[in-house]
């Protein structure tokens, strides 16, 4: 699979969050979700966010995508305050939520259509479909896809737009381990090619270690930053590398798993 999208984007976006706090008003009162989250992500950096289920990771990605505004604190991209969504910052949602009335190809073309670039972009769409291995299913409807295929289509729907910041909310969660490994490698290669900034939410410690240059670990809800770990190993990384094993144990301890699994 030797596929790249268009020429590399100018540069990845940098991300700043300053003392971000967020809560939801529910019928049982206020539900605190984020607590004083301050993060700096350099242009072109690959950062993984790890934390227990329900701690607030998806919420943080929504704030950076500009879909919601933080209750307190500031969120910025390239040091400009984020006030709304923008096609340079794209989010691969935890649920693929493809439009059921559109074929896979039409779903992938959505962003190009929305920004008026769909005409003459068929090649780009084809390459995005190749990248996730869905070229043969371009004409299929979402309800004809498996869960993993739908997730790959959702990935292609975002990648085809050459984002400068890629927000990934457990994008490989529903894939079998083999496809998962292939796509992890593809993701690293794509990131190295296109130099976008990547923010990956994952449950999978190994995935974080394979992909990210830096791992940020959150506490249970409300999410606070517990720890940051640099992963300096060169790419492509091997999952059995001893240095990663050491980091893996450290991370598990930070997440509260001090006993050996």
């Amino acid at each position: 699979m030797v596929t790249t999208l268009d020429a590399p984007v100018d540069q990845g976006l940098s991300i700043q969050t300053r003392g971000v706090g967020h809560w939801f008003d529910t019928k049982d009162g206020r539900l605190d979700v984020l607590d004083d989250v301050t993060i700096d992500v350099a242009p072109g950096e690959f950062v993984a966010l790890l934390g227990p289920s329900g701690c607030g990771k998806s919420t943080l990605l929504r704030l950076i995508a500009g879909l919601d505004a933080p209750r307190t604190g500031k969120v910025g991209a390239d040091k400009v305050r984020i006030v709304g969504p923008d096609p340079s910052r794209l989010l691969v949602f935890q649920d693929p939520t493809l439009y059921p009335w559109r074929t896979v190809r039409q779903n992938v073309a959505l962003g190009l259509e929305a920004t008026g670039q769909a005409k003459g972009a068929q090649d780009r769409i084809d390459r995005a479909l190749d990248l996730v291995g869905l070229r043969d299913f371009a004409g299929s409807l979402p309800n004809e896809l498996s869960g993993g295929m739908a997730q790959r289509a959702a990935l292609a729907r975002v990648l085809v737009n050459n984002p400068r910041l890629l927000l990934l909310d457990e994008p490989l969660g529903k894939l079998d381990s083999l496809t998962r490994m292939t796509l992890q490698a593809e993701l690293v290669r794509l990131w190295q090619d296109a130099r976008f900034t990547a923010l990956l939410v994952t449950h999978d410690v190994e995935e974080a270690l394979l992909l990210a240059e830096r791992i940020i670990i959150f506490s249970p809800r409300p999410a606070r930053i517990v720890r940051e770990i640099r992963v300096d190993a060169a790419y492509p990384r091997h999952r059995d590398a001893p240095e990663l094993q050491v980091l893996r144990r450290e991370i598990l301890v930070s997440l509260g798993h001090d006993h050996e699994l």
Partner: protein
Amino acid sequence: MNSLAETNRFASLAAITGDRPGVALPTPWRGGLAAAAAWALTAALTWAWPDLTPWVRTGLLALLETGVALFLAGAALLGGVRLAAIHPYDRWFGALAAILSLWQVLTAKTGLLPLPFFPPPQSILEVYTDDAARLFESVWRSLVLLIPGYVIGGALGFLAGVSIGWSKAANYWGHPVLRFVGPLPATAWLPIAFFFFPGSHSASTFLVGLATFFPVAVLTASGVKGVNSAYYDIARTLGGSERFLILKVAVPAALPNVFVGLFMGLGSSFAVLIIAEMMGVKAGLGWYLQWAQGWAAYANLYGALIVMALLFSGLISLLFHVRDQVLAWQKGIVRW
């Protein structure tokens, strides 16, 4: 098409199990043969049993019944898979023949059921042969009243529904109106409509439009309001404008609801159409019914009812056909 696939499946099954080597001759459609026999018997009864008082179209009726019998026999013996779509209806064909026989025995042949309330089938046939011009004219006039009103009412209802579903302001002003005025049956507006509009034709168009407008508006609005908010999130991050969100997300997502509204609107527009024709327009199938009743022409009455049933169920089938084309992506929705 389904049964064709079925046939193929059975053919390959036979090939696998080897219980029918070579190319099998098509087995005759047994149900079809039985139905053909029933129709032949009915034809014989129509022809051989003299009417109590002779009806003009008894001969033609016998001929038509023979035609149906021949068609069924042909389909059963020679039709093969081409006519397989009608195979499941063999019992219906048989039952229709039985009903037609019984009906004639009770009316034309013995007079057990009294005229004029129980006309025999040959007299309804006579309506179709001798009053065809007036019936065609009535169908035409009904369609001319129905279709513009339905199209205008449906289009306006759709626009109102999208606005109310999408915009807070439109919802604030529009939703209470829909809630308050919507439940009024369109027929209740009849006296006012006939008073305010210059002619009965425009008044009826308005009423048909009204009958269509409300269900389409209500269901479109609730469809747009119910769109999964994640669909909007996706379009917004990808750079979709508000116009894009409405046209490419809200509308397609709400379409299944819109079609339910169109279906309900069609049903209530039939009701209002017939009443308007009876009360004011003096044309169309509703008027034909009333005219026939005035002359105690019960055969014409039944004849017109049958035409009306065919017309209306045809229109609903057409709507469902369009729906199936437009919503081909959707599976397992209400069948007609």
